[in-house]
């Protein structure tokens, strides 16, 4: 039994963290809400109670998966680039600009627009990458700062050059139909982006664990001095993993534009890049674990929206509840004392010695 506990410690810890998070949420909701039973039901079961809400979970998960994968590639090399948000925003803006100014058959237009958006995102994240590789500038700081630059650049581009003045609100021109990703389940907005996200999760998994370049990235992350010592070009890894990050994030952002809004509608940065960091941490930077982590986060987000719409719990409190759950999952030291005691008992019996 104890050996089993040690082996699946991480999984058990996540489950316990979620359980505690929910207990605290229940407590908070009881404290705040006039009708706690109903509020609680909205939050926890709400996402499953209608077809459109359930679909909403899938729609929300797909850009989060892309951003989680993006972050994971960089984090596996221990490059703490948090610029997914900026690359996503600017990449999607430039992809939109490209899509509305061109016209060609769908089977070329769709991949080309996605590629252009991805390349734009990659180019953007090349900036912190080269600053780090060449001059040792912290990628954490520079990518964070560049997120704001990307946001305002994208906003400028959309508001001053591609704004649809007839739309009545601040959005870009509508994409030509040849650049739309189809919504393939009737009465929902679930589009091919989710399929692409799952395919990319597999691709990134294969890339990291079954290719020489993936090995270089992971080795650099395990121990940079070890990698350098063995002849791996750390410079190349530092640049490459961040460029891939920008590509994936922007690609994911573009699928959302092409699949759901069909225009560039983000007056505020959508935050998927930040969610990507959360799911990368929950999924321990493993591309396949990022999929369930993203669905879980999407579920929390949709539950929060339902709660906000249906109950008297204020939006601020919803964010607090979500944060508590995420915090518990990501706390590395949580339950480590317990693990230590189990290890100790095993060792005393001569099990682990």
């Amino acid at each position, binding site marked *: 039994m104890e050996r089993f506990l040690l082996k699946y410690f991480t999984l058990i810890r996540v489950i316990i963290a979620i359980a505690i998070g929910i207990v605290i949420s229940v407590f908070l909701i009881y404290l705040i809400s006039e009708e706690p039973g109903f509020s609680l039901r909205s939050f926890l079961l709400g996402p499953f109670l209608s077809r459109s809400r359930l679909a909403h979970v899938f729609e929300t998960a797909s850009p989060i998966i892309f951003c989680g994968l993006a972050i994971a590639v960089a984090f596996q090399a221990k490059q703490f680039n948090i610029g997914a948000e900026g690359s996503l925003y600017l990449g999607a803006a430039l992809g939109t600009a490209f899509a509305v100014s061109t016209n060609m058959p769908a089977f070329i237009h769709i991949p080309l627009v996605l590629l252009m958006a991805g390349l734009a995102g990659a180019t953007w994240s090349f900036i912190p990458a080269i600053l780090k590789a060449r001059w040792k500038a912290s990628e954490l700081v520079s990518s964070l700062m560049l997120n704001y630059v990307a946001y305002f650049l994208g906003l400028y581009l959309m508001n001053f050059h591609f704004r649809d003045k007839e739309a009545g609100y601040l959005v870009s021109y509508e994409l030509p139909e040849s650049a739309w990703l189809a919504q393939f389940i009737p009465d929902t907005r679930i589009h091919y982006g989710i399929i692409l996200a799952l395919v990319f999760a597999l691709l990134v998994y294969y890339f990291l664990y079954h290719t*020489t370049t993936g090995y270089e990235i992971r*080795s650099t992350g395990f121990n940079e001095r*070890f990698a350098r*010592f*063995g*002849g791996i070009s750390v410079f190349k890894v530092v640049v490459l993993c961040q460029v891939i990050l920008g590509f994936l994030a922007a690609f994911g952002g573009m699928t959302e534009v092409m699949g759901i809004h069909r225009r560039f509608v983000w007056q505020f940065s959508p935050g998927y890049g930040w969610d990507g960091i959360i799911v990368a941490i929950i999924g321990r930077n493993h591309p396949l674990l990022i999929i369930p982590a993203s669905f879980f986060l999407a579920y929390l987000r949709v539950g929060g929206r339902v709660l906000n719409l249906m109950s008297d719990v204020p939006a601020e409190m919803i964010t607090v509840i979500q944060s508590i759950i995420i915090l518990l999952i990501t706390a590395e030291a949580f339950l480590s004392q317990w693990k*230590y005691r189990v290890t100790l008992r*095993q*060792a005393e019996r001569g099990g682990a*010695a």
Partner: protein
Amino acid sequence: METILEAKDILKVYENGVVANRGVSVAIEKNTIHAIVGENGAGKTTLMKVIFGIEQAQEGEIFFKGEKANIRSPHDAIRMGIGMVHQHLMLAPDLTVAENMILGNEPRRARVFLDTERAVEITEHVAQQYGLQVPPDRKIKDLPIGVRQRVEILKALFRNAELLILDEPTSVLTPQETEVLFKTLKDLKEQGKTIIFISHKLKEVKQIADRVTIMRDSRVIDTREAGELTEHDIAHLMVGRDISFERLPAPVQLGKPVLRVRDLSYVNDEGILVLNKISFDIRAGEILGLAGVVGNGQTELIRILTGLLEPSEGEIALQGETLVGLSPRKIREKGLCHIPEDRIEEGVAEETTLEENFILDRYYKRGFSKGLRLSWKSISEHSEDLIKRFNILAQSSKTPVSSLSGGNIQKVVVARELSADPEVIIAAHPTRGIDVGSEEMVHRLLREARDRGKGIFLASADLDEILKLCTRVIVMYNGEIVAHFQDMSAVTGKDLGPYMLGVQREEAVSGKVSA
């Protein structure tokens, strides 16, 4: 005899499940020098950390001067009169000797300002009281390691330590400095202090200890009067079997130079000349030793040879082809391998599996990958083969390196480097901190490589290792080669010492080619 300290049935398990002490009991008699010997990983240092309050034992009791002692922190230990001198000295390098002495209970003027004069007075007073010479005004970083150690000892004495624990104090000293230390310890014993002396060097133990406790596999094997035991007895108890002390006979015939180093200089980022016109050859079929006190440029020299650092000037050629300016990978491909000084920081990636550690220098080569795709099957086979050939104690090639012992981790490094089939092997401290069994194995592998005609460069802080293995030896001091011993048959550690300390140098060694 009166017992000053007694530990009973100590059990200490670390968080990762390693049992470091299991039912350990030891009694230290007052006014003796008590040696605790054992291989690395036998549990000596852990026991001392428990006694000094750095680690907490899960079970067991400690009695100090007959009373049960509850030592929760080093602070408690110091208050009771226990002092410890760590293997890696715990002094502030930018402060003076006097400032280090009084750190923690500083004399003050007007309650706020440090009274430097008083600090110097205190230092001089304590130094005089115990007959230990230290320069109170000098900064720690400007002093040789032997003097720093003396400061650390004085610091413990100043805090009224009656029992002094020294953790492998001689591992950083030259033979001459060791003698000075031993005299100091004997004087302290005369003055009524009790000393626990941790070591794995048998000669020293015989020389200084009154009583000896031998530890093996986290347990105490025996405690005896030192006079009753010979070096061989102690070695036998430590390892559980006989080991050889013999020197390796010199090779019958030396081959051609395989690695040529000429006028190598290196100026570091701070503008300090770390290497000054180093020239030597490594010949096929020999082990060339590099002796010297740590920090005299050896680390930089090795990093330059292996391409991890750019020299400021000079030439390195492997079988006639220059290595200067090449990347570490290119240098490896030319036939040079490197057993690094710091195996945890550089030699392995601890978090990951053995196989991912084994392929570091070859993952992109034929047989391990096709195009971009890694061939995991052949990688695993290769790794299983290395585990078997190099006798690595690991469950499988998918075991994480972090779960191995120090000796086995080193075997992983050695297995990878030697299986690359190099012409030149650069080995930096290849047996530091590993168990005797693994040490013997590493020595045997180096010897076999030598006999197959490889050129080997061995840098080591362990003079016994240098004397045991090397065909020729060069000594480095302050970035220069100050001595070159061609014939090692009659050379002892004492012959090397004066050169290592810089008090003696061969005329015109530097500049001249040591070949």
